């Protein structure tokens, strides 16, 4: 903290009813500002919880700082700017359901509509439907279906069948029943007489004439063509990411996921985390989820914030990087390389500042600093594994030449655990290994690899987490690229690159660890690995 003051209030950013629910849960922890990015009708919202300050509609213009002192700049409808400080941020944007009618080349009218329109104007659409009429729902084919939208379809179909007596059909690709009670709901609808037709080879065709619309399809189970002319035709919507998602992600410095949905594609972001401490994402903005799941996430994020508030009262223990101001040349490499955006630049401060709350101790900044101006302070426990130089000096090996000697840089989140597990199982390694515990593959600098090679070992292995499950987001991929560069450099110098191995292994995968080391050992001995050990390099695989 720059000024030692810690703010504990929460900024909730949303675009619909869900963010009110989230703000309500958080209000029991500390004061909450609810920034709703759109004009929304208040009567459609959940009741505005007490203790929550409502900013609506509001534009978020700027964002900076660290947990406990995030600064947000707003512009409100009256044009006025405001700057506020928050302890935490919760992004509760909702995804949107977009009509798929254009994908079927049809236009909305009184007979043809989308599921969300039907939901909104149910009486208008169903008012003229009666016995003898036909109603058809179409689910999937042009987009992914989700249990949450199929739940609506099955409920509507059952209600239409029961209340109007109309012949009701649901044409679908898959039953998406992965939600409590849905399997049963589908059965109950069938018992009411709703006809579900499932397709795997063909797609129904929709034709719209001036008088009637026709759905033509192949009943795959019966092997015959079917024609239906429904009085009402309803298409399932497509789940689309929140339109504000990209802008908000960029502004907050959090990774965006696939197809524009929120939350970066990294294992350790699950369930509600981002690459930044103190910034969370909850709800359907990450991808469609049921209301119950979304509620659970709202409670979970309130718990996370309460926990962080508790942690502010405690002193930061354990290793923490410190920056030597005399060595810093303000190249800002650390600022750019920190995967958690824990390094800030403050006007008037001589050097970048590292937030002890946001820092997760991966050591990527230490590796990336060209001046070696950043160092880990050793915590009370006296952990020294961050000091790779010292560790290398301690590489011990017995004076035995029957098996290769290997220095292993092992990530503490994965390969090091796998090594300990292999050891405790009594697995046999066909190499004499000195295993160096590193906080992240991204911490291992090229110089350390070369130094380790020079210490008299036969080979150096750098074993990290799999990409996408690296706790420091891009630590493993940085490491892979760096090792590839070291190998290239060595080849140019005429040194055999085979003496270096990059591999990935999970913490519980003792057999994969053993397999990686033993194959490497064989390679170092000039043997052909594949002929002796079955399979290829396990779930790992080497850098190319």
């Amino acid at each position, binding site marked *: 903290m720059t000024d030692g003051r810690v703010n504990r209030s929460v900024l909730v950013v949303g675009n619909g009813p869900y963010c009110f629910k989230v703000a309500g849960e958080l209000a029991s922890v500390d004061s909450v500002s609810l920034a709703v990015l759109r004009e929304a009708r208040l009567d459609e919202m959940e009741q505005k919880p007490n203790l929550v300050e409502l900013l609506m509609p509001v534009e978020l213009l700027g964002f900076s700082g660290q947990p406990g002192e995030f600064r947000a700049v707003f512009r409100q409808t009256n044009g006025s700017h405001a700057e506020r400080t928050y302890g935490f941020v919760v992004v509760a944007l909702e995804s949107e359901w977009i009509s798929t009618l254009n994908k079927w080349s049809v236009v909305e009218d009184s007979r043809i509509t989308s599921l969300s329109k039907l939901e909104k104007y149910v009486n208008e659409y169903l008012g003229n439907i009666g016995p003898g009429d036909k109603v058809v729902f179409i689910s999937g084919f042009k987009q992914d279906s989700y249990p949450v939208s199929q739940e609506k379809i099955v409920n509507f179909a059952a209600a239409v069948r029961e209340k109007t007596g109309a012949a009701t059909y649901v044409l679908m690709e898959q039953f998406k029943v*992965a939600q409590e009670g849905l399997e049963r709901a589908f059965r109950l609808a069938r018992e009411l007489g709703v006809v579900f037709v499932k397709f795997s080879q063909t797609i129904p065709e929709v034709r719209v004439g001036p008088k009637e619309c026709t759905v033509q399809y192949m009943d795959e189970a019966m092997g015959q063509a079917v024609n239906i002319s429904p009085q009402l035709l309803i298409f399932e919507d497509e789940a689309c990411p929140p339109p504000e998602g990209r802008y908000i992600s960029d502004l907050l410095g959090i990774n965006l996921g696939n197809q524009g949905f929120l939350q970066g594609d990294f294992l350790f972001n*699950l369930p509600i985390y981002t690459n930044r401490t103190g910034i969370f994402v909850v709800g359907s903005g990450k991808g469609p989820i049921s209301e119950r799941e979304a509620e659970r996430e709202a409670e*979970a994020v309130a*718990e996370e914030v309460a926990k962080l508030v508790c942690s502010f009262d405690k002193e930061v223990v354990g290793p923490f990087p410190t920056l030597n101001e005399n060595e810093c040349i303000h190249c800002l490499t650390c600022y750019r390389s920190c995967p958690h955006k824990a390094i800030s630049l403050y006007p008037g401060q001589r050097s970048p500042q590292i937030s002890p709350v946001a820092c997760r101790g991966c050591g990527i900044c230490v590796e990336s600093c060209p001046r070696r101006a950043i160092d880990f302070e050793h915590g009370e426990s006296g952990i020294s594994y961050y000091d790779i130089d010292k560790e290398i000096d301690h590489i011990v090996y017995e004076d035995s030449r029957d098996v290769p000697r290997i220095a292993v840089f092992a990530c503490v989140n994965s390969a090091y655990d796998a090594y300990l597990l292999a050891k*405790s199982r009594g697995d046999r390694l066909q190499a004499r290994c000195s295993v160096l515990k590193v906080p992240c593959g991204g911490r291992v600098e090229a110089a350390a690899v070369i130094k380790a090679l020079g210490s008299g070992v036969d080979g150096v292995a750098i074993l990290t987490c799999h*990409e996408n499950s690296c706790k420091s987001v891009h630590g493993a991929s940085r490491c892979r690229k760096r090792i590839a560069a070291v190998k290239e450099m060595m080849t140019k110098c005429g040194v055999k690159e085979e003496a270096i191995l990059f591999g990935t292994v999970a913490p519980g995968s003792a057999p994969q660890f053993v397999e990686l080391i033993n194959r490497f050992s064989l390679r170092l001995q000039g043997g052909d690995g594949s002929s002796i050990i079955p399979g290829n390099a396990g*779930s790992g695989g080497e850098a190319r």
Partner: protein
Amino acid sequence: MQKEVIIVIGGGITGLTVALELAQLGKHPLVVERGPLLGGRSASLPCKATDRCLKCNNCLVEDTLRQIKYDSPFEFMTHTTISDIRREAESWYVTLETGPFFIDWEKCTDCGACYEACARLGASGVVRGASINQHPFFGIDQKACSCLQKGADPACVKECPEGAINILTRPQTRQVKAHGIVVATGYTPYVPPEKNRFGYGRLPNVITTQEADEMLRESGAVTRPSDGRVPQRVAFVQCVGSRDRRIGREYCSRICCGYSLRLALHMIHKYPDVDITIFYMDIQNFGKDFEKYYSEVKDKAKLVRGLPGDFYALDEGKISVSYFSEEQQKNVAQPFDLVLLTIGLSPQEENPDLANMLGLGINEDGFLRPSQADASAVVVAGTARGPMDVAECICDAKSAAFKMANFLEGS
């Protein structure tokens, strides 16, 4: 002030997460686990990565266990069951029974002398953790103890240098006054009945996905039980014990499609020549970005809609699987080297008793649900409530911890 103890029933990923979160909120959880180890079923999930992480979520479990191992943030009791719960005024009086044959984890240093002693006798009475982050790393499976069966003193007791292994004449009891209870008793994997059309139990190369998991974690590969060889042709049969009203399981187990698709990709990555067929009813969405895995599987494996009918033995441990081919519009039979039954999640057998004891409800599928208002002294979390994956369990555990902490603040 007296500590407000919260009893967390179940030491799986949900129970441990609840306890960890409560401890970090300054509360005093006590985890009660009937098994010998902490971590539950999720601790022995194997990594299913290819050259990238497929988010099987196993590493989330490791991370939680690691935190617990190094920080010891809360009290726990393994080998322990609840023999009685009484509600009096605002408190619960819980009687806990430990042992009688158990390892005292406070004395245990995870050295493994007990395990070796037991293994030397060819028995499996001492069990070992699947993750190095499990502490205690060893525990007692009394039913598998060969010494007790012979009426002898267990060898492990003598071998333990710390004197950490207790064998008492009757269980050690302890009474705890608790202010709240979190039920995180999890699920039980479906086991096909003795007579089943899959040939499970009769054909050695028809195994459940749980057995495949154990094999993958232990040895690093899924091989044929009959000869230990890497299978060339593998069939996955989905929805075994799920979505079947006739066996009382009219629900989707939710995690199995993701399981099979990930395992299929893992096997194809490891053995590119392997030929995989997945028999399914519908492919369910699982987690974030499921479409990516689904389309990759569609490219690399064969997906057959409809579950196969007959399974019978062929030569060399092969299994003939017959099914209706929609392409050919007729029944066909195909030989496989290995058949994996993707089994579903079943509610725990004890759920009705537990519901009775704690005033909980049971949903139509047999899982537990809260019967009181939200701010109650009993919270149910994780797969005790219904099928969910590890990330969902963690989320549910955090929400349960939040409810429990709020309840304590309010009371």
